[in-house]
């Protein structure tokens, strides 16, 4: 991880702490629809399955997973930085 990534300032934040699959991804879809191309979203999660779900979602939808962090201090906490790479809002229907 480069220091460049640590200093990135997100444009929006989505806290999915306490929520379980598939709700974090549903909330992620809703949040990204409100974003502009190039904006950066910070996602906080406690569901460890998001370690697989979010990278997979980014790969499939063409958005960039800039940063993924995992911490067990004060409970499981995962942090993701995702850059919206397209103006599309419906990942399937416009492909």
């Amino acid at each position, binding site marked *: 991880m480069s220091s460049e990534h640590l200093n990135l300032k997100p444009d929006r934040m989505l806290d999915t702490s*306490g929520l*379980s699959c598939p709700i974090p991804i549903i909330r992620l879809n809703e949040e990204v629809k409100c974003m502009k191309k190039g904006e950066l979203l910070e996602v906080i999660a406690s569901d460890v399955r998001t370690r697989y779900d979010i990278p997979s979602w980014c790969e499939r939808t063409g958005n960039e997973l800039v940063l993924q962090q995992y911490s067990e201090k004060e409970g499981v906490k995962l942090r993701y930085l995702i850059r919206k790479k397209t103006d599309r809002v419906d990942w*399937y229907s416009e492909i």
Partner: protein
Amino acid sequence: MKSLVIVVRDDSYDKILTPLAFAYLEASEGVQVDILFVNWAVKALSKDGVEQLKVDGRHAGEEERLRSQVKKAGLPAEIREIIKALKSTGRVKLYACSLAANIFGVGEKDLLPEADGIVGASWFLNEKAFKADHCQYF
């Protein structure tokens, strides 16, 4: 995938959760989801039936804990509220199977306002299932 068809046959609270959660996930990603409620599940599309959904048989004693866990996961604990959330995506259609509606006593006037009507199996298979990119049966 642009379209998903789901066929649901059970009307117990626990067995209807998964298809509705899958539908919610896919609809949030822009997929058109068409759900056909067949057999006992047709009751879940009625005003009275949706309020009476219970956890099935041997797991009945765990209903309170299950509903609590569903809420904790982030879904509404009531099926009616999940159905409203599905409709709020604008990408989910909920159909009652006409054969099931006849057998299990659900008429047009009994349907939830979120339901998209009673349809024949033939129409649903021809217009939705055969044209869908993916079908799931629960």
